[in-house]
Every structure is written in structure tokens, then in C-alpha cells.
């Protein structure tokens, strides 16, 4: 590039002299027809043009050559360089003066234009960078966008961004080049409010990094720092939100749990101590009743603790279903076998088609869903009414409905009944942690399904859907072999 500048500058001198030669020749032809002073005036044209087009040096060269040719060709005696009159010296001075003034004016205008263009380019680049960085949160992504812009604009041998802090990492472009062993030509800190969060290193020898480029890179660095700062703030905010939620969850849990755990404990304590105290006769019916109470209440406690564990697992995102192809009817049957005693107060109807495809679910977790939905139905629906479990294929999903003849729920509560600790009725009417339905929701959502509640004409229903594909594969069709025994 330097060679090119040199040759273009050299060409300017050649062009200036050429231009003078051409005009001199033209006026020389008309020498006798024109007045000398008019020629002097006209010869200012090549001086002015040369200065404007090629700069001060070629302008002065043109002025000198014009003066010489004017003296040689147009001032008597012709073809000599003798200056006879002092006015001719004035002409030379005027030529030089015009050349200098024009070059200054043109030079200033050009410099102003170049500066304006450069500023506009910087502004555009900065705008593009900040557009690219807006809405980006991850530190890695921010650094990657920044380094890509720097590499495109500065075209260095190598650019490296080092981010320090708790999650320190470094990025480098081009990735397949090892950074030169020498120290980088330009090192800029990424300075955020909380301190230096990283560093930009640029290796580039050819061409040397100009001061305007350095300034632009500094602007980039501070832009990057701002975005990194914003990302850190967003993260801190979402962490704070999670903590706040979990704090709220824990305090609601404590208030709910201390009451719920104490009720069965009180029963157990009362029954056990009265049995131990010997007030109850060995064969009295009271004795077996107390023992049954201890047994039932410890089961109740066990369910409560299980619910708490499930909920904390859902809250922490640790609930990962072990999906396998299962028969929905078998899951329901397994639940009902376990709940038989509890469900004696109601009539249960299972309406699951024989040819329902296999469903990809976690057996134990789906048992939990059915257990909670059925026990919720048992709690709220009047005794001896019907609880129905229905399933059918709907498109690429399986739709399941657990319906009962219990009271309807005000429409505005339908969404909220899956919230933690949410109760429509007064808490003292029905026991439980208020977690059962939100556990169902957590499990169904971990299975990529949906769950919702619905009022029926004569009752209430929980509905959920589950995808029928496992890792993209449809349910397997197994053919049963013929009977050969």
C-alpha cells in the first residue's frame, strides 16, 4: 500500500507537468492572438487543477513549470528565461500563492471529508456491534460476537478475548492459528463497573494499528464491558428471583407441613401412649382401633413425606422420567390394587381400550399421577359416586381423563388448582399438603405432556395428554405368537 501511495504521488507530479505542457502547447498555438496578461490568467487553470486534483507538491510543481514556460514561451524575448520586468516576478509569486492557497483549501476539505467518512464508518460499526449484542445474555455468546466483529474489522493475524471471573474462558480467531509468541501489538482491558472483566489482545503488524483504530477498539471493548455487565445483572436478578421463589416455597411448606405432620403424629402419640399406659384392656375393641389408627396415621405420614420429597425434586429439576414403553391399563391396575382400601367409598370405572398403544412413560411416576388424581377425586366427590378413568388416542398423543361426580370448581380457579399449596375450600375441611396436584403437573410436564382441569355437566375432571413417541419412535407393535401348547 505504501508503494502504491508513493507511485500515485509520483504520478501526480507527472500529471501536473503533463497538464502544464498540454496547456502551454494550446496557448502557444494562439500566442499571437492573445494578450500576455490574459495568457498569464489562463495559465492559472493548470495550477489550480493540479493542486485540487493531486495536492500541494504537484501544485507547486505546476506553478513553477507554468512560470518557466510562461517566461520561456510567452514573454519577450521568447525562448529565454531572462526576467526583464519586476512584474514578471509578481506573476511567479501569484502562481505560487494560488497553488498554495488552493491546496490548503482542498486539503482541508478532503481531510474533513475523510474524517467524516471515518467517523460514519465507526458509528456504523459500533451500531452494528451493539445491535448484534442487544438481547444476548451468555458471556460466551457476547465474547464470540465481539471477537467476530473485531476480526472482520481489524483483520489481524490473531485476536484473542480472555474473560476473567468465576467462569473464566478465552476465545480466539482464527481458531486454527496459534497466537504469535510475541506480545500482542494491542492489549485492551474490558473495564466494567465491577472491575476489569477481561482483555482483548490483537496481533497485527501490517499495517500498524492506527490511533483511530485503537480508539474504535477501545469503544468496542467498553461496549463489550457494558453488555457483559448487563448479562451479569440479568443473571443475578434471575438467581435472586429463584431464591425468592424457593424461599417463599419453603416458608409456605413449613407452615403447611408443621400442621400436616403434627396431626398424624398427635394421633400416633395418643394411641401409643394409651396402649403403653395399660389403660386399655387386651381384648377390648378400643385396643385394635388404636392400633389401626397408629398404622393408618403412619402410612399417612409416609405419604406426606413422599409428597415433600417429590415436590423438592420437581422444584430442583431433578425429576427425570425413566421412560419405557408401558401399558397404561397396567399402571392404573397397579394403583388401584394399592388404593383398594382407600377407594372402597367410591365406585371406580376403568375405561381404557384394549388396543390402546404402548405409552412411553415412567411407570412409578405415572403411578404417582394416578394415585394423586384418584385420591383427590375420592376426597372431594361424595361417597358412593362414580370415579371414571378414561383413555383414548388423539392424534399423536394419548388423552387421559380422571372424572368424578364431585362439586364443580369456579372457572377462575381451574388453572390455579395445580399451584402449590392452593386450596379452593377451607384448609381444615380436607387434609393433605396441597402438593398432590402440583406434583402431577410436574410429572406430566417432565413427560412433555399437558395437564388441565375441567368442569363437566355433572362433575369435575382432570385431563392430561402424553406424547406417544419415545425419542421420535412410534409405539412398537408386537405380534403375539400362535398358541402351540
Amino acid at each position, binding site marked *: 500500500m505504501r508503494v502504491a501511495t508513493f507511485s500515485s504521488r509520483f504520478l501526480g507530479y507527472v500529471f501536473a507537468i503533463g497538464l502544464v505542457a498540454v496547456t502551454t502547447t494550446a496557448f502557444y498555438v494562439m500566442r499571437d492572438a492573445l494578450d500576455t496578461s490574459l495568457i498569464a490568467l489562463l495559465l492559472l487553470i493548470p495550477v489550480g487543477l493540479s493542486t485540487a486534483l493531486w495536492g500541494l507538491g504537484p501544485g507547486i510543481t505546476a506553478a513553477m513549470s507554468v512560470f518557466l514556460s510562461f517566461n520561456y514561451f510567452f514573454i519577450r524575448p521568447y525562448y529565454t528565461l531572462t526576467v526583464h520586468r519586476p512584474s514578471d516576478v509578481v506573476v511567479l509569486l501569484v502562481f505560487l500563492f494560488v497553488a498554495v492557497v488552493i491546496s490548503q483549501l482542498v486539503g482541508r476539505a478532503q481531510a474533513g471529508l475523510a474524517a467524516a467518512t471515518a467517523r460514519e464508518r465507526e458509528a456504523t460499526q459500533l451500531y452494528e456491534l451493539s445491535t448484534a449484542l442487544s438481547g444476548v445474555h451468555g458471556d460466551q455468546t457476547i465474547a464470540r460476537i465481539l471477537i467476530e466483529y473485531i476480526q472482520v474489522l481489524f483483520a489481524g493475524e490473531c485476536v484473542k478475548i480472555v474473560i476473567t471471573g468465576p467462569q473464566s474462558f478465552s476465545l480466539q480467531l482464527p481458531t486454527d492459528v496459534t497466537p504469535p509468541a510475541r506480545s500482542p501489538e494491542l492489549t485492551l482491558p474490558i473495564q466494567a463497573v465491577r472491575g476489569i472483566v477481561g482483555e482483548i489482545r490483537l496481533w497485527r503488524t501490517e499495517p500498524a494499528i492506527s490511533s483511530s483504530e485503537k480508539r474504535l477498539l477501545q469503544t468496542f471493548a467498553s461496549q463489550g464491558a457494558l453488555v457483559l455487565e448487563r448479562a451479569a445483572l440479568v443473571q443475578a436478578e434471575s438467581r435472586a428471583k429463584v431464591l425468592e421463589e424457593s424461599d417463599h416455597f419453603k416458608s409456605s411448606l413449613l407452615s403447611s407441613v408443621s400442621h400436616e405432620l403434627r396431626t398424624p403424629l398427635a394421633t400416633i402419640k395418643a394411641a401409643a401412649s394409651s396402649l403403653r399406659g395399660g389403660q386399655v384392656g387386651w381384648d377390648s375393641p378400643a385396643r385394635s382401633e388404636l392400633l389401626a389408627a397408629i*398404622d393408618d396415621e*403412619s402410612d399417612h405420614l*409416609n405419604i406426606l413425606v*413422599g409428597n415433600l*420429597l*417429590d415436590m423438592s*425434586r420437581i422444584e430442583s429439576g431433578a425429576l427425570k422420567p*425413566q421412560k*419405557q*414403553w*408401558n*401399558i397404561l*391399563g*397396567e399402571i*392404573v*391396575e*397397579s394403583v*388401584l*390394587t394399592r388404593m383398594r382400601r382407600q377407594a372402597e367409598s367410591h365406585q371406580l370405572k*376403568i375405561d381404557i381400550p384394549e388396543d390402546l398403544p*404402548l405409552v412411553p412413560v*415412567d*411407570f*412409578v411416576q405415572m*403411578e404417582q399421577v394416578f394415585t394423586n388424581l384418584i385420591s383427590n377425586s375420592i376426597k372431594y366427590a361424595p361417597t358412593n359416586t362414580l370415579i371414571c378413568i378414561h383413555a383414548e388416542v388423539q392424534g399423536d398423543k394419548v388423552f387421559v381423563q380422571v372424572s368424578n361426580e364431585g362439586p364443580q370448581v369456579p372457572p377462575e380457579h381451574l388453572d390455579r388448582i395445580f399451584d402449590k399449596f392452593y386450596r379452593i375450600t377451607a384448609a381444615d375441611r380436607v387434609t393433605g399438603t396441597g402438593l398432590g396436584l402440583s406434583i402431577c403437573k410436574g410429572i406430566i410436564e417432565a413427560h412433555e405432556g399437558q395437564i388441565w382441569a375441567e368442569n363437566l355437566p355433572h362433575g369435575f375432571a382432570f385431563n392430561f395428554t402424553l406424547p406417544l413417541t419415545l425419542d421420535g419412535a412410534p409405539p*412398537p407393535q*408386537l405380534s*403375539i*405368537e*400362535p*398358541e*402351540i*401348547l
Partner: protein
Amino acid sequence: MSQSPNVLVIDDEPQILRALRTILTEKDFKVTIASRGEEGLTLAAANPPDIVILDLGLPDMDGIEVCARLREWTQCPIIILSVRDAERDKVAALDKGADDYLTKPFGIEELLARVRVALRHSTRTGSDQTSLVKARDLSIDLAWHHVTRAGEEVKLTATEFKLLAYLASNRGRVLTHKSILTHVWDPADADHTEYLRVYMRQLRKKLEADPDHPQHILTEAGIGYRFLADEDKE
């Protein structure tokens, strides 16, 4: 059982140890207790137990490993105790040679029933292994491949019979999905639980009076299946 059997209980919780020692001694067992895995292994080596009750959550070593180390030299039944939601551990321990499992908290009747089944199973040797298994209205002749329900012959496919025979010869015990798939199908099919689910439904339809409420083959959620024969009912 003429002689009172030796029970080794390995559990790190003193309350459980206290309760089990009291109850099992009452039921005429000779009870040895250990609160750590290493201690349990040493005690077992010094005085070989007739049955081991092993908690999976021990402070010094993994219960699954205790199971594996016991199985290196003894075939005595091992019943594992574990909390709910630890299905993977239970399955791992069962596949490592444990005979049965109980989820804490459990009723003592349940524990005693499992202990009885396990002891009966371990004393049942090749010669006195009966080939006829009875479960309510069901009668299965393992040697003659003959199954009747309420006196009527039940027609089974080859795989269905293989499945039933495997369950019936391990009556009373829980069998993991993997162990059933490996024995009835092929070790290569050990992950194809869907085969098992489908064949189990077919089998129940033929054997159970109400397939929705099975009485013979019970589902052990997340673990496997268990066949209940008359001899295992109290």
C-alpha cells in the same frame, strides 16, 4: 423349621436395629446386628447367617456392593431394605443377587412373609422341588407343561409358558424386568420391557379372573413382577 434360623441385620439406624432385634427375637430368630457394611461382612464370614436383611443406605459402603461381596461366597437369601424412589438401587441390588426387597417404612407382617418365602426358597433343593405349583384355582405342572384353571386346560403359547414357568418356579420372589427378559427371551433383549408388558397382559388375560385386578402375578412398580402361590399366602 426345626432350628431357629440365624438372621443378620445390617442397618445404620439404631431405631430400626432395635425394633427388628426385638421383633425377630420374639419370632424365634437368632439375631445378629451390624451397623456398617464391613462389620456386617465380617460377622457374616464368622458366623454364616441363614438370611441377611440389608439396608441399601449404609455409611461406609454401598449396599449393592455388600450384596455383591456376600454373593461371592454364600447363596443365603438377602432381603434389602430401601426408601421409596430408589428403584434403580433396588433393581441393581436384585440383579446383583439380592432375593427380595422391602420399601421403608414397611409393616412387620410384610417383612416376616418375605423372610419366610426367602428361607423356603433357599431350602428348596433340586430333588424336592415340586413340579406342581398351585395358586388358588390355578395349577401349573412345570414338568408336563400343563396349566389348568378351575380344572379347565389353559392354552398358552411357548413364550407365555416359559414366562409363567419362570415366575412360578420363583414363586413368592420378586423378579426384575431384566432377569425375566434375560431368562425368558435373551440377554440381548434385557432392555425390551415392552415385550414383557405385552406378554404379561396376554398371560394375565388367560390366567386371571379379572385381569384388571390380578391375584396371581403382581406388578412391582419400577422393579418387576412377583408370582403368588398358595404356599406363600398366610
